[in-house]
């Protein structure tokens, strides 16, 4: 049968060894990085929900603008202007040619 003090020493030795184990000196940096990551994830959730809403809103606006543009169009009759030209009254080119003859 083992002595009580021996058992107590064995327990104490293990506890001392584990107590003396130092955590990584960058543990606090690691913790803060993990927290920042969590916060980024949380912030990223909103656009994720907003994305389909924004797509739907854009589509609705495009369709609505299409309807507005379509309704605004009126098939107005194009005015047909008839120009009546009397050839007889047209300037006679001969007039310009007269000077040449005089020379």
């Amino acid at each position: 049968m083992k002595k009580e003090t021996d058992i107590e020493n064995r327990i104490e030795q293990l506890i001392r060894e584990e107590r003396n184990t130092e955590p990584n000196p960058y543990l606090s940096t690691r913790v803060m990085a993990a927290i920042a990551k969590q916060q980024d994830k949380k912030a990223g959730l909103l656009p994720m929900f907003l994305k389909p809403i924004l797509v739907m809103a854009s589509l609705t606006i495009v369709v609505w603008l299409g309807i507005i543009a379509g309704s605004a169009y009126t098939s107005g009759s194009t005015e047909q202007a008839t120009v009546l030209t009397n050839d007889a009254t047209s300037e006679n080119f001969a007039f310009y040619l007269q000077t040449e003859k005089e020379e």
Partner: protein
Amino acid sequence: MQETELIQSILNGQTADFSQLVKTYETAVFRIVMGFVHQKEDAEDITQEVFVKAFQSLDRFAGRSSFSTWLFRIAIHTSLNELKRRKRRTLWSMAADLLQLPSSNKDPEQAFAQKTEQELVRKAIDTLPKKQRMAFILSRYEELPQRDVAQIMEISEGAVEQLLLRARDNLKNFLQRP
């Protein structure tokens, strides 16, 4: 800055102030977790998880107890949950732990014997009933006075004393086995 002011500042959006709390309590939390998992890498992972949980639920910290009491409770529950999750530890990792020799320049045979011995003591601690183990770890690993252990465990100081006595008896019985 006082702890309560610091907490208020964090709640007001000064997230970076949380690093001060982490730096103050990381060693204490690490030691408590170490008492449950006995492995440095695991203890670091769980310590990180404890602080992330504490940060996420900081708005629920009512200030009825001290911040350390609240934080140590999170550390205990996270460690116990993690142990439950890792209960089925692979044979390979257990063998690797057993064969991992300490860095001291002892005789390999002696070092192996010591490692096996330590494994037995670890096993003895791990087989303690949950409440006895909690009281034992808080009292021996973090060397907290019985009053603080009682506050963390939400029991009376007398009950803590009883738990510690029973834990000691159970450890002895386990280690006296042939």
